[in-house]
């Protein structure tokens, strides 16, 4: 099968990237040293090709009503245009279809960014839910006209919702303590628009969309740009001294920052309440959403915990964790360049407490790890 390529593929090769098959995409894993790239982002600035992620626009009158039902987090938290919200999208049984960021543009338009590997599945699910979705009961004159008393039939009616995959948009993330300054240097006019942008919000700039978001635990932007303009923007950033960062460092940065990776730390078989996502699931409002009934009926018995390896070795996904309260499993593990120790996220029985020592089976050895509060590192510093 031919690998899919982003508009920056030639640029990566010219910059000496080592390319790998990443879920069907030909992507850079590093441009030399993954550890150097990791430190580059923690201490200065780096840029990532995230064009493989998918932008999906949801449009239609009062589309907020649909998203209230579609997403586990509550889009009513979004009141200012450009504001972003992190949410899971759940199956009826509560399993996680994907995690995503939803941006409030206006009442007729929300923008969602989903993972690359799940994008087609996500869009199919959204379209299925949107088909035949019933809008609110009519009010005012329309209600009178449609009421049974005036001879009409009171019908909620189908709500027309458009699910638009924005394959025409590329996305580049610029991350690190100096990321914003470098973007302002490379992109004339962007400073005025984005200097006051609070974290987790975005603004449009012509055909571009600049969000103060990321997946590294550092400040910076994720920038959407028409695909055909992406190579030029990438080259401009490079000329400003922004180093390219591969998917290898992206993974260690996000793990240190305590951010979940879909397919490892969460998937369709596990409740978000057992995946460290309880803070994103709104179970308090009377609002109904897909998966809510299942979550209420199945209280979590496990939780996601942070581990630091006390002995020598490296924690990896799928290693078994022995605790006094039963067995668990590592969902993501690696070496933390910032802490110079091995760290992991692990799904363990919920009784396991911070400070506990647990045992991890690594090949033929049983090694000790300590349960810690995560994130492990953010904003240039280790947090342990």
């Amino acid at each position: 099968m031919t690998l899919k390529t982003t508009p920056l593929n030639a640029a990566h090769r010219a910059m000496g990237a080592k390319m790998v098959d990443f879920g069907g995409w030909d992507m850079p894993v590093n441009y030399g040293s993954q550890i150097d790239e990791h430190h580059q982002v923690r201490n200065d600035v780096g840029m990532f090709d995230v064009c493989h992620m998918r932008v999906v626009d949801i449009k239609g009158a009062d589309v907020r009503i649909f998203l209230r039902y579609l997403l586990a987090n509550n889009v009513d938290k979004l009141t200012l245009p450009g504001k972003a919200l992190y949410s899971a999208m759940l199956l009826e049984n509560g399993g996680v279809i994907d995690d995503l960021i939803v941006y409030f543009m206006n009442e007729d338009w929300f923008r969602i960014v989903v993972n690359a590997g799940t994008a087609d599945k996500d869009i199919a699910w959204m379209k299925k839910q949107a088909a035949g979705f019933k809008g609110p009961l009519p009010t005012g004159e329309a209600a009178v006209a449609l009421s049974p008393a005036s001879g009409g039939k009171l019908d909620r009616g189908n709500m027309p919702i458009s699910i638009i995959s924005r394959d025409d948009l590329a996305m580049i993330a610029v991350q690190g303590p100096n990321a914003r300054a470098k973007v302002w240097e490379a992109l004339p006019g962007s400073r005025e628009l984005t200097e006051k942008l609070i974290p987790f919000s975005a603004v449009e700039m012509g055909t571009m969309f600049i969000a103060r978001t990321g997946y590294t635990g550092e400040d910076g932007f994720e920038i959407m740009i028409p695909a055909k303009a992406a190579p030029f923007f990438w080259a401009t950033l490079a000329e400003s001294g922004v180093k390219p960062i591969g998917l290898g460092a992206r993974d260690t940065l996000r793990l240190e920052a305590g951010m979940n990776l879909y397919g490892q730390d969460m998937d369709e078989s596990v409740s978000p309440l057992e995946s460290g996502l309880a803070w994103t699931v709104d179970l308090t409002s009377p609002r109904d959403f897909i998966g809510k009934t299942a979550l209420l009926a199945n209280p979590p018995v496990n939780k996601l915990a942070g581990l630091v390896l006390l002995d020598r070795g490296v924690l990896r996904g799928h290693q078994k964790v022995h605790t006094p309260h039963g067995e668990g499993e590592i969902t993501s593990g690696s070496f933390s360049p910032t802490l110079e120790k091995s760290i992991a996220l692990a799904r363990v029985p919920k009784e396991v407490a911070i400070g506990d020592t647990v045992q991890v089976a690594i090949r033929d050895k049983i090694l000790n790890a300590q349960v810690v509060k995560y994130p492990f590192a953010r904003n240039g510093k280790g947090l342990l």
Partner: protein
Amino acid sequence: MSNPSSLKYTTSHEWVKTEADGTISIGITQHAQELLGDMVFVETPTVGRKLKAKEECTVVESVKAAADVYAPVSGEVIAVNSDLDSNPEAINEDPYAAWMFKMKPDNAADVDALLDAAAYQAVVDSEAH
């Protein structure tokens, strides 16, 4: 970096250097370290352990993945490079200097039968296709 012609090689990407006293030093090749990326952990065998050819005896872990290192020939482990405990990145910096363990081969002819640099390069090239 080319593969030194003075060394022998295995299809599993170890290099083997014969010392003056007939013992051998073993490490992993430039190609192997490139594939694995930044090294963060090396677990060497116990001195005195008897190994059979192709037996797993060392684990190297990079940020990305763990990989086994195999005994190139049968023999006994006579030394391990404990410098790599605190400095595993030496493998990335100069893979042909960063030996992992030394063996006394059971049979010197087994070492002679390993791949030479050109034959090893052919193995690497074939994997690229």
